[in-house]
């Protein structure tokens, strides 16, 4: 979770404290459509995974990102 928070903070250029367990694209204004694309690329690079189009559309909050990545990493 900490890793994901760090990636979100770095990619969206926001303070780490502002990323909470229940954060989503609704609660973080910097998490717009471009931010989303950059975030997905950063997550894929960091965790060595590839998301499908449906997953990318769904990955708009921290909890889901956490769940999908742990599923993929097995």
């Amino acid at each position: 979770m900490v890793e994901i928070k760090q990636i979100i903070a770095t990619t969206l250029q926001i303070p780490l404290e502002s990323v909470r367990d229940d954060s989503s694209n609704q609660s973080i204004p910097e998490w717009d459509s471009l931010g989303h694309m950059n975030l997905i690329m950063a997550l894929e690079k960091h965790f060595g995974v590839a998301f499908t189009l449906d997953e990318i559309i769904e990955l708009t909050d921290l909890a889901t990102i956490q769940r999908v990545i742990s599923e993929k990493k097995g």
Partner: protein
Amino acid sequence: MSYRWAIISNTTVSPLIAQLRKAVGTKQPCEFHVAQYGEADQQVLTPASALYSFAPNLIVVLLDLQQIKPGLETSFAFETPDARSAICRELVALTVGYVKALRANSTATLLINNFPVPHRTALGIGLDPLWKNALRDINLQIAGAVREIPQCYLYDLDSLWTEAGIADRDRRFEMLAQFPYGPKMQQLLIAEWLRYFRTLQGLSRKCIVVDLDNTLWGGILGEDGPDKLHLGDTPEGRPFRQLQTALKALQRRGVLLAIASKNNSADALAVLDNHPDMILRLADFSALQINWQDKATNLRAILTELNIGPQHLVFLDDTPAERKWVRDSLPEVLVPELPQDTARYADVLTECELDTLSLTEEDLKRTQMYHEDRERRVAQVAAPSYEDFLKQLELQVEIVSLPASHVERAAQLCQRTNQFNLTTRRHTAEQLTRFVESPDSEVFLMKVADRFGDYGWTGLAIAQINDQTATIDSFLVSCRVLGKHVEFALFWAITEWARSRDCRHLAGTFLPTAKNSLCADFYTKCGLKPVGESAFAAPVADLPPPSIQHIKLTVSAKGDPLPHG
């Protein structure tokens, strides 16, 4: 002074910009302006837009056909032949119109993409050629039109996609945000833009230093002897023939070649002179260091002999330890990894930062000019004093008002000259043309020759008149002609011009860079007085004629025919 990039696209480009920033690094400060999607058209077509007020040095255009005319890939084949021609004409006109709008509103260098030809479409092999060949034709027509637009270049997006491969097309981001560039393509695209950036900034490498044993030829001369070297048209010899052929082509294009090898000099020279299978010959090399000294020492000697900096050098050597030693000792030298497999040697040359944007007369004669330099050095050693040597040179200097035919060479001088360059303003061909066309400014181009040969066009100055003061915008002299006082002839031509235009004062600026300390006191030597930070000026009437009696000087004004060619 930071370099200003504008990136214009009818699709998403932001993710590329972050990477571009990273790739440019901190070595050269850059600023970026991005216009994407709908913003692009608006900013390109409006003269007062944010794009033009940003005053970019370089405008990179990335146009996606899908955004201009969606669905052509599958609909084109069903159009009538007339409709197909009309579609092609329209696409060419749209793209060329875009570039022309940019040209009309900006002096920046323009980079525009061609359109990628798809590998296949759903229609299959029978119908695919209709659209694929139409696209190839569109690309050729755009390339032809772009060649006619000054300071505008077409980069080959189609080839980049071929290199990245269809698997790198990111369908997800294409569908989410019209961003089809996968990691490989992003890297290739940025690398391609940086090639232009480097070349425009005069950062291209000028000289390749090669090792001999197992680099220029197969085998070890000292152990195998000249007859056993792999150089012939055999599987073992072909990699070296291919490398030599490529090096020869680069040499013809103006890249200098030099040798740094641990060998007995006489044995190596005999191979270079006489070996029947050598493609490169002794005369193709501008500097030779064949001895038992370490390679970094030899490279430094080559730099001194050719009067270039380590940032201009590429070093090819098959021995990892030699590469490491040179990298550690001279970090600015580009030392590519030579592959284990000799078959891939020549491929390395495409990644050696040797690009050039145009080919000038000077490029074609460069090696010859360096040989003439060597003869001059011999004469200098033989002369009783430096003054005597200068007199013996029989120097001839021609200074002309920049003619349209020489604008490319003048722009190249602006891009490449680093040491004797008072302001280091990297004027483009387009900007130089504007100076030429303005009634209140003059661009002086200087040609130097002596009894050993022709140095070609090697000096440039720009002066502008404002309120009876002529101000020197740029003053630069190629380092190959320094030490002969020709720079004073160029300055004198400006003085005389200022006088003829009834100027009272002549002024100039020295803008220090990491490389131009050489000319810090030039304006003082010419008789200008410091009048503030980096500014110099003096009344025109006070400027003394320079002591250049050893130079035969010809100056022609605007509109005069060129003295020779």
